[in-house]
């Protein structure tokens, strides 16, 4: 990888403009260093030059679908950050249990690992019957994977440590049907889930939620875009609804404090206050 093809700054912006114009996806407020790294990886994988990449992006819809999946990061884990799930269980769910129903939005859900982790947790505390989890992402392909709820045994094995550190009872595989080299999530855990396309950059409020989880998505966005999306979240939450961000996603907006109360500063869990 020593001579990994790089992009000049103007080339990067040329690609961003092209993708916006032809496909309607706006990457201009994405974190540039990460975006650049993903693009360099794509041209290396496909052995493309800059102009070939431009041509493919403009003319090949199938290529663009693949490109979109590659350029956005779809790495996720079940029970990623066990301390977050513990905090959710002890600090948030007892509060939400008094609500008539619990609608949850997992924004940027990728292949569904977080949605099913939440479903497993809600099932354990017997809140599953009145809960519904919406998983959204900009990639149709990863949403298809999410709907299936089938993960390789290798992945399930790597999630097992997270599960145990989250203080969950039994074993993660208790919630799956094992088939040869893959594991399929139990159908009752899929029952109250729905996966659909939603682009955080361009789409707006689509429902009212008691809890929104958007963890490790903001890291790909520059601050102005983060602020815009925070407003969408604010307007999507019911009064006293909860917002969960990734543990390293610090909010720096001055008026945030008047809108949200900190529930857990290390896990970045907030509660909506000051509804107009």
């Amino acid at each position, binding site marked *: *990888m*020593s001579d*990994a093809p*790089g992009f000049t700054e103007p080339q990067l912006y040329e690609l961003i403009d092209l993708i916006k114009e032809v496909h309607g996806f706006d990457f201009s407020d994405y*974190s*540039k*260093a*990460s975006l*650049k*790294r*993903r693009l360099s990886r794509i041209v290396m994988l496909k052995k493309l030059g800059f102009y070939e990449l431009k041509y493919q992006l403009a003319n090949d819809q199938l290529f663009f679908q693949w490109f979109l999946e590659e350029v956005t*990061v779809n*790495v*996720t884990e079940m029970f*990623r*950050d*066990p301390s977050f799930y513990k905090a959710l269980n002890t600090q948030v769910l007892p509060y939400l249990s008094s609500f008539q129903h619990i609608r949850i939005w997992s924004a940027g859900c990728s292949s569904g690992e977080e949605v099913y982790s939440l479903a497993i947790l809600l099932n354990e505390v017997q809140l599953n019957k009145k809960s519904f989890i919406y998983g959204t992402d900009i990639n149709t392909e990863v949403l298809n994977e999410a709907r299936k709820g089938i993960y390789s045994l290798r992945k399930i094995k790597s999630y097992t*440590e*997270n599960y145990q*550190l989250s203080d969950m009872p039994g074993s993660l595989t208790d919630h799956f049907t094992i088939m040869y080299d893959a594991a399929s999530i139990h159908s009752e855990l899929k029952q109250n889930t729905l996966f659909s396309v939603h682009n955080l950059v361009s789409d707006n409020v689509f429902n009212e939620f008691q809890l929104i989880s958007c963890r*490790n998505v*903001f*890291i*790909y966005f*520059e*601050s102005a875009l*983060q602020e815009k999306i925070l407003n969408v979240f604010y307007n999507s939450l019911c009064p006293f609804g909860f917002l969960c961000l*990734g543990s*390293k*996603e*610090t909010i*720096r907006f001055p008026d945030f404090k008047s809108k949200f109360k900190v529930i857990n500063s290390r896990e970045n869990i907030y509660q909506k206050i000051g509804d107009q």
Partner: protein
Amino acid sequence: MAINKNIIEHWNNSEIVLLGGSAGSFKLLFRVIKAFLPGLNKTVIIVIHRRKNFFSEIERLFADNSKMKLKEISDKDPINGNTIYIAPANYHTLIEKGGYFSLDVSDSVWYSKPSIDVTFESAADVYKERCTAILFSGANQDGAEGLLKLRNSGALTIVQSPGDAEMPDMPQAAININAAEYILRTEEICELLKSV
């Protein structure tokens, strides 16, 4: 190889110090952190391989022993002078042109997240010759490609002498692809880092 005038000059002109380490580098990095003084007038960015889910122990130990301000990196943190930054576990840390960090959870590189390569490569894009990077002991090849990119963009690149490293693979990998401008003994590295 001993410390010469060129090394000292490039070191003095470096705003940014990048330190990468893996297995067998912890004790040395700990010693280095203790040695840095507030008058250093540089930004130190440390990427050290470690397991996810066991965070805060290393950070706390480092913070308790540092005379300089030390912070575990959060997304979009501004990069300030006279501060030691530690890349968080289970994220890659990238450096943005606007003078701040951004994090990334994409696949591990050389089974590592944080990956030294990822941080070094993005630093090469931003800092060019205004930086010094040192690669320490480790059992894999992470950091070698990043160090090469730094060297090609004008940074001062140093590796710990494999003979001195508890795990020689990582410094050796960098030497093999000619990424190291200088190969220094542990004592020489400590001496250089202490020169303010």
